[in-house]
């Protein structure tokens, strides 16, 4: 049963990455310029929003794969850290969207924290 789950998880990740690969270039996430705290514009907002959606799905997939007992894994921790960075980038674009995601970030943090406490890697 565990093998069935891991197979499904692997296929889900492949499908997620294949889906994102079909997006046009104007939607592909580009690391924003340092001076992002200005008026980033619709393009950065759209790219960051889709990046956040992609990371959310990746996070849920990692949760499926995570250790059943502690419900944490290195993949989960890494994804959670990417989510924090993506939310920081989108923060200046739309506060409403950010508050929506901030609530979710709190739950992400609470789940990733056990691993961080164990490994003392959390910053």
């Amino acid at each position: 049963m565990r093998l069935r789950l891991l197979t499904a998880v692997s296929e889900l990740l492949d499908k997620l990455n294949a889906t994102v690969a079909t997006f046009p270039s104007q939607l592909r996430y580009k690391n924003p310029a340092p001076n992002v705290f200005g008026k980033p514009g619709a393009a950065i907002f759209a790219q960051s929003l889709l990046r956040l959606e992609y990371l959310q799905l990746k996070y849920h997939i990692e949760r499926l794969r995570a250790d059943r007992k502690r419900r944490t894994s290195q993949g989960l921790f890494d994804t959670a850290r990417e989510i924090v960075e993506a939310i920081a980038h989108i923060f200046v674009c739309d506060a409403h969207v950010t508050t929506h995601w901030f609530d979710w970030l709190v739950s992400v943090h609470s789940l990733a924290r056990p691993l961080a406490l164990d490994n003392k890697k959390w910053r």
Partner: protein
Amino acid sequence: MTKNFDADNPTQRQSSTSSKRALSSSSGSPTPTSSHRAKAFKESTEIPPLPSHGRLFRPAHRWGTSSSYGSTSFSAIFRENQDKFGSDIFDVPHTVALNAESSAAASLKKLNRCLKILHTLPSEETCGELLDRFVTAKDPLLAMPLMRAAVGSLWGTFRQNLAAPRTDKKLEDIADVMKTNSGTRWTCIGDPAFGEWPNICCGRRLRWEMLGLIFAYFGLAYMHLKVSDPLVEALHEPTNARQIAAWRMRHCAIMCLQTLKDLETMNEMVIILMRAVMLLDNLFFGNESKESEEQRALLVQATLSSGLHAMPKSPLITAATEYRRRIFMSVYDADKMMSCFSGLPPLIYKRHCMMQAPLDLSDDELLGGPAEIAQAASRLDEYGWNTDGKIHEVTTYRALFELSKVKEDIQENALCMDPSSRRTGVE
């Protein structure tokens, strides 16, 4: 299987008579408790009268197209063998809505509701300011050109009626127009007037659907204003001015929806209105609230009943067909998003739907006319994305639609109650 109330059935007639007798005996009883109950019952004006013909059965195909109801529907066997059964198999008697304009009381109630709604509409100047400030609703259904055209035609047609000071007498003209229009059939695919969409519910053709949508849009606009905005300060509310104004707009949109429900009207514009009210409710109550879950269920039911999940692939590209695809996309995305939030299973599954995304056309191109649509569509790539490098409102949502399909696969695995039935292959 639907149960039919048959007035000719002696058993049912007897039970109906005895229930009437029970009401009359309770009204004549000397005991204070029963008389209070009877008085409360008599004073209630919210219960509609039973139709005189006594028939409550409404055939399923009344709402959506016949193709949207699958092979397991009750009428499927008759549709498939219509030639053998003959044409009279579909001779279903016309039924009126339970709360239709059949009584003076119901008509007066609707008139009062309409007047209350029209009194709440902001002034023309405020309407213009809200449209200028709220540039994007972040949903491809609430296209700015559509809302501008709708508000513009409302004031252009009824400026004298809506100008201050508004009186009931002046607003009754608008109410009469809406009453007439609500009795006309909504335009469908294949209808000669189809190409005029969305003008079919604006101006002198104003309908409850469009009026409600305008209020819902203004509600969203108020919620997105800054606290220091002059429009907010002009409301003269000590606290929560934006929320109060948006709440009033929401209330009017809800009243329009209630009227449409009373008239048993269901079409694409009603679904857009439901979606807009849901966006507003998400701001007031949150995504995990009971209200949002109820809205989601109603929205999904309306979408499926209207056949928006079963639109066949067609080379025909019009504003209406693309808008129908946008509606389904928006509802599908919302269902997955709320399912993710709440942890409840989704209500729509892609294997029961035609999953064709709308084309990556800007709102101006889509509502510009057939020639402009054809020209813009010719510049799209094979997957329907624009090749100009632009990001329209619908561009982001097309991408979210693709991600929502993956989200459904994830939810199927994550929310699966029986691990042994978990599917290893993803579609």
